[in-house]
């Protein structure tokens, strides 16, 4: 019986991590439903981008208030997790404050965790106020209704609860240390929780132990819960921001990819030796569909982008179309892509690893042509994203499908393209008149 807590702890830990691993493998499977895209080039630049943008939060501070608050929560999250290592080891071995042997270093660590925990609580409260009291416009777009709004708040609540549990655990521990309770070694410094310790005055050692243990268990259980909450939430960005910035676009923002399948056809058309009546080779692959109408037509990086999006809405708030009341919202493009991908993933799970046509697709069922045609391709959304998501590339791929597979461009654009085809300019002017300006006064 003596080892019962250890056994329960190990079961909890294995279950928590096991479930997380399962979710990660599902995530990976879904992301790689996307088309292959080789991004093995320019490794040094990619590492640099990841260090600067994800680790260094360089694009967060473009908006100083949100940026500073986010950095507090981010540093808190990373640093306080050192403490989780100790908690896990204590849980497995039944020890208490295993790292106390570090002496003054330990005091410093615990002290700084506490300060950070308090700062995190303050930052999270301000975040909550921004969302629920000040009601910042970017959190109140149509795509944010329902689950996305609740998800955002839920994350804030979980973070506060975890920090409060951490401080309660320390406060009770501090009180027990003062009282010289068995098992509670004199270790750590408690600049914040010592302030709440007076609340526990008059409590017996046994009830303090109960309080400390309850907070300890709930804290670690909460962390394991949060770890597994990620997959069902926008909060995956805490992990995916790193690969996403690594695989982010390195070429100039204005450079859109040239479709290889089109290049092949154009080359054949321009080749005087090509036989226009040639039968396709027996083993010739089915020609690629042009553009994207569903998530499988997008590249895996675009799908990674979708899971990485944390719905902050900076893209949408910078979007000229959205600012002027059009339906397009780059954030919605990312959320729709992720939601459809989840739907496709569940379909595959339900059908023994095989996708069964569900009569739906990303185009029309999630993203309407009206949204796609409102884009000015100005790259404001791409610039605004703090973690290198590229909504514009998805918009352009879907336009390609509309135009090249469905001939469904707006009439004005068909006229423009007809003009380019016929006379080499988007307007109906004769190419032979191209130099007339030089003779006009």
């Amino acid at each position, binding site marked *: 019986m003596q080892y019962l807590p250890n056994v329960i702890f190990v079961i909890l830990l294995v279950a928590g991590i096991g479930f997380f691993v399962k979710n990660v493998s599902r995530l990976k499977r879904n992301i790689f439903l996307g088309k292959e895209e080789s991004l093995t080039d320019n490794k040094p630049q990619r590492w640099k981008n990841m260090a600067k943008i994800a680790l260094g939060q360089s694009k967060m501070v*473009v908006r100083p208030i949100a940026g500073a608050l986010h950095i507090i929560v981010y540093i808190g999250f990373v640093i306080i997790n050192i403490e989780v290592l100790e908690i896990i080891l204590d849980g497995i071995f039944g020890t208490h404050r295993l790292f106390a042997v570090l002496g003054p270093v330990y005091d410093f660590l615990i002290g700084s965790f506490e300060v950070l925990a308090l700062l995190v609580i303050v930052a999270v409260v301000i975040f909550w106020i921004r969302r629920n009291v000040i009601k910042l416009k970017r959190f109140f777009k149509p795509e944010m209704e329902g689950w996305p709004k609740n998800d955002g708040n839920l994350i804030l609540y979980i973070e506060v609860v975890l920090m409060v549990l951490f401080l309660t655990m320390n406060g009770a521990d501090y009180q027990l240390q003062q009282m010289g309770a068995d098992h509670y070694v004199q270790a750590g410094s408690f600049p914040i929780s010592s302030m709440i310790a007076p609340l526990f005055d008059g409590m017996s050692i046994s009830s303090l132990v109960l309080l400390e243990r309850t907070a300890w268990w709930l804290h670690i259980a909460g962390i394991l819960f949060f770890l597994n909450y990620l997959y069902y939430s926008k909060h995956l960005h805490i992990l995916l921001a790193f690969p996403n910035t690594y695989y982010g676009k390195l*070429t*100039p*923002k*204005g*450079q*859109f990819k*040239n*479709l290889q399948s*089109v*290049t092949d*056809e*154009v080359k054949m*058309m*321009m080749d005087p030796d090509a036989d226009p009546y040639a039968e396709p080779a027996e083993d010739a692959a089915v020609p690629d569909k*042009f*553009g994207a109408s569903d998530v499988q037509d997008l590249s895996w990086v675009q799908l990674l982008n979708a899971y990485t999006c944390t719905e902050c809405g900076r893209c949408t708030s910078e979007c*000229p*179309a959205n*600012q*002027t*009341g*059009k*339906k397009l919202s780059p954030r919605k493009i990312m959320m729709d892509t992720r939601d459809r991908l989840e739907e496709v993933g569940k379909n595959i799970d339900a059908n023994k690893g095989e996708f069964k046509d569900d009569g739906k697709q990303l185009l029309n069922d999630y993203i309407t042509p009206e949204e796609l*045609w409102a884009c*000015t*391709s*100005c*790259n*404001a959304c791409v*610039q605004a994203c703090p973690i290198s998501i590229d909504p514009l590339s998805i918009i*352009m791929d*879907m*336009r*390609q*499908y*509309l*135009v*090249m597979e469905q001939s469904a*461009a*707006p009439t*004005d*654009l068909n006229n*423009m*393209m007809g003009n*380019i*085809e016929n006379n*080499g*300019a*988007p*307007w109906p*002017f004769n*190419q032979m*008149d*191209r*130099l007339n*300006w*030089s003779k*006009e*006064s």
Partner: protein
Amino acid sequence: MASELKVPTMAEFFASGTVPEVLFWVGCAGSFDDRAKKITKAFVKILNKANVSFAVLGTEESCTGDPAKRAGNEFLFQMQAVTNIEVLNAYEIKKIVTACPHCFNTIKNEYPGLGGNYEVVHHTQFLKDLLSEGRISMEGGSFKGKRITFHDPCYLGRANGVYEAPRDLIRKLDAELIEMKSCKQRGLCCGAGGAQMFKEPEKGDKDVNIERTEQALETKPEIIAAGCPFCNTMMTDGVKNKEKEADIAVMDIAEMIAAAEDL
């Protein structure tokens, strides 16, 4: 004055067995749009004054394919690109200057993958080089002390990271450069990009060019400077919509320099 414009074509250079220093890619707007043609001529006047050996393709030039590509017609884009590249490569073009950021972006970034490799510069970059090489001189003249705000073209700024060349030129005119609340990397689009120039906008509360014009008007400018023929049209329309055309001019930077030099 207009009769003094010297606009040699590549064909003429080729016939005489010589090569110009740079090809001036005029673009569709610069060739056909009445407002943009003024920018083209202003730029040519500066080139003439500076004795730059340049040529245009003239009737051998065709749309780069940019609006087709942004509209989703990759096929038409690549047909245009391959045709243009054949012409450019046949003339062994090394360096291209253009006053249109869309042409600039497409030729610079999207032609190399299809076999067209050239040094491509925007006319503001080219003018800045002429200035630093001492080939043109600039006095502020009538622009001295004027309040000027610069509207960043998306395909020059965000798309290609060129923010300073146009601004340096405005400062050289001894003008007072005032920035709009969203500028440079966060500059707001004029509403014309992505083939929007050629279609009606989707339903909304407002047109993008009006929103941008309002931002420009907040700076109380005497001149709104532009570096793109499409932005120029959009901002001109915006200023007219606000009935401010009597007080505020929308000018390309090349036009400002040409005017300052009385060209």
